[in-house]
C-alpha cells in the first residue's frame, strides 16, 4: 500500500503546482509585461497584445511562432499535467498516451525561453529607452516556476504502477 500512496502524493503535488500555474497564466499573458518610454511616448504591452500587434503589422510568422511556442504549447503542457495527475480515473492506455504527448509538447514549450529573451532585452536596451517591467512579469516568473515544479513532481511511474 505504501508505493501507491507515494504516487498519489506526487500526483497531488503535480496537480497543486499545475493548477497554480494555470491560475497565473492569464495574468502573465494579459497584463502589461513591458512599459516602454521613448521620447516622451509611453507604451505598454502584454504578451497577447504584442502578438496581436505583430499580426497587425503583418509579421505572421513571428506572431505564430510566439503564439504557438510560448502560449499554446505551455498551456497544453500544464493542462496535460493536470489531466494526468487529477484524472486518476483515466484509463491506463489513455494516460500513457497523454504522458507521451506531454513529453513531446514539453520539448517545444518555450515559456522559460521567453523569460530569457526579456532579460536580454533589459540588458541590451537599458541605455536606449527607458523601460520597466509591468505586473505580468511577476505572474510570468511564478507561472514558469510553477509549471517546472509540476513537471518535476510528476512521477511517470504512477501511470503504470497505480492500480
Amino acid at each position, binding site marked *: 500500500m505504501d508505493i501507491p500512496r507515494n504516487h*498519489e502524493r506526487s500526483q*497531488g*503535488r503535480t496537480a497543486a503546482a499545475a493548477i497554480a500555474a494555470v*491560475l497565473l497564466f492569464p495574468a502573465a499573458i494579459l*497584463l502589461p509585461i513591458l512599459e516602454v518610454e521613448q521620447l516622451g511616448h509611453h507604451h505598454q504591452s502584454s504578451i497577447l497584445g504584442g502578438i496581436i500587434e505583430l499580426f497587425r503589422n503583418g509579421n505572421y510568422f513571428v506572431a505564430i511562432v510566439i503564439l504557438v511556442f510560448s502560449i499554446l504549447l505551455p498551456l497544453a503542457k500544464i493542462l496535460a499535467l493536470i489531466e494526468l495527475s487529477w484524472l*486518476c480515473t*483515466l*484509463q491506463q492506455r489513455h494516460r500513457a498516451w497523454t504522458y507521451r504527448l506531454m513529453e513531446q509538447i514539453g520539448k517545444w514549450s518555450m515559456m522559460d525561453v521567453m523569460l530569457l529573451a526579456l532579460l536580454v532585452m533589459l540588458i541590451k536596451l537599458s541605455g536606449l529607452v527607458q523601460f520597466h517591467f509591468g*505586473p505580468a512579469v511577476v505572474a510570468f516568473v511564478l507561472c514558469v516556476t*510553477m509549471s517546472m515544479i509540476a513537471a518535476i513532481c510528476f512521477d511517470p511511474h504512477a501511470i503504470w504502477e497505480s492500480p
Partner: protein
Amino acid sequence: MNEPDTPPVPNAEAIPDPNAEAIPVALLQTNPTMTRWFASRLWWLTLVCGMVSLGLFWYSRQNTGSLITIAFREGHGLKPEDRLTYRGIEIGAVEKIELNPERDGVVAHVRLTPRARSMAADGAKFWIVRPMLSIDAIRGLDTLLGAKYIAIDPPSVGARAQSHFVGLDSAPIISPVDGSLEISLDAKSRGGLENGAPILFRGFRIGNVVQVSLAMDARTVRARCAIDPEYRDIIRNNSKFWNRSGWRLEFGLSGLKLDADTLAQMLSGGIEMATPSEPAPGVSTGHRFFLYDKPEAEWLAWQPSMAHGQAWSRLAPKMPQPIRIALRWQERSFGFRTNQQRSSWCLPLSDGSVLCLAEQIDAPKSALADSTRIEFAGVSLSPSQFQVLNTTSEASQDSSVDKVGRFTTSEPIADDVVRWPVDRVAGKLPDAVCDVLIAHADSSSVVAIDAGRLKKTPMGWEIDDQVLVDRDYHGLPVFSSEASQVIGFVFVNKQKRMIVR
C-alpha cells in the same frame, strides 16, 4: 462522493468503458485516496498563486487609466501615442484614431493616466492644439514642430463620470478664471471688437472680452466680458464703458493727430471703462452695461478711490465690521427739554469692549443728568450700564478733534455682532503714514487711501481733499493692511477730514 465505491470524479469516458473494454481500474479508487491526494502542502502554494494572480489583475486595473473616446470633426494630423495634456503635462495618450462609421469625423481613443481618471466627466472639453497665429498671441507654437496634442478644459469637481466626448473644433473661448466677474456689454455695433480684446481702466488691463456675438434678437451686439478677480471691485453699478477700438485720425489746425494706445489694441480693439467718483455698490456676475461709442468728458475726470487688487480680495472677509452707534441725550433749551443725538460707527472688540470716537461716549456738559443713552447693536445703555475705560477727550489739545474712547457694558449684546480681535488694534497711529483702508459695513463702500494722500499732523493724519470721504464715514475704523491692524478712526467735520487715534 458520498458513496465510497463511486469514483471521485466521474469521467465521461469512464462510464461507457466498463462493459466495452478491460477492467476499469480507476473505479476502485476510493475516498481516502482523494484525501491523501489533497494532503500535499503544495496546495497552499496554489492558493497563494491564485491570490497573486487576482492581486496582479487588481493592481493593474488600478494602474491603468480609463479609456475614453473623443469625437472630432477633423483629425488635424493626430496620431496614436500623441498626448493629452493639461497644464503642460501629459495626462493621457491617444491609443488609436479612426474614422467614424458615418465618415463625417474621427474618433480618438485616449487612455488617461490613473491619476487623471476624474478628468473624464461631464463638462470636460477637448480640442486639438495646432499652431495658430492671432493678433495678440501666437498659440500652440510647440505643435508647429512637435507632435499635435489634445488639450483639455477640465470638468468641474464632482461631475458625473463619462467616457464618450465630443471634441471642439478649436480652442474654447478662454474660460474665465475662477472668481472673475462676468458682465455683458450691449453695443450698437461691433466697432472692431474682437474676442480677447482687453478691458482697460485708466489704460490698465483689468479683464478681457470673452466673446462678441449678436444679441439673441439681433438688436445689439453683445460682448461677454470677464473681469479678473482682483479687479472686480472696480466695476460698480454706475460704471461706464466705451469702445475705444481701432484708432482715430484727426486732422485739424493743430495738425495730424493719431490716437491709439497700443498696437494690439489698435488691431483687436478694446473697451475702456470708468467708475464715478462716488462709486455705487458692486455688481454681480451677469450684470449688463451699455457700451458707448465714445466717452463723455466728465467720465474721464472721475477719480474714485476703490479698494481692489489681490491683497484686497484676500483681506475682504477679514476686514473689521463696524456697526452703527448713537448717543442720545436731552438738553434744556429755552426752558424745553429737547432730544439731541449724534451717531457714527463703533467697533466691537473680542474682549467685550467697544471702540469708538470719544465724542460718542461723552455727552456734552449741557446734557441733563441721567438722560444720556448709548444705542448700538439693538441695545440701549443708560450711564449706569456702561463703563468708560479710557478717553483722551479732555487731554486733547484741540477740542474740535476728538480722540478714540473705549467702553464696556454689562448688558448682553447680540451674538451676530462680529467682534474684532483686541490684539489687532494698534495703541497709536504708526510713525509714518501708510496705505490704509477705511472699513465699512458695506464692503463695496470700503475706501482705499494711498499713503501719498495722507499728511501727518500732530492731531492725526489729514486726508487729502481728492479722496472722497464724506460725513457718513465719520467714526469708521481705519485698517492698515500692512500691519493688519485697526490703527485709528476717521474723523470728519466741516473743516477737517482726519484719521485719529
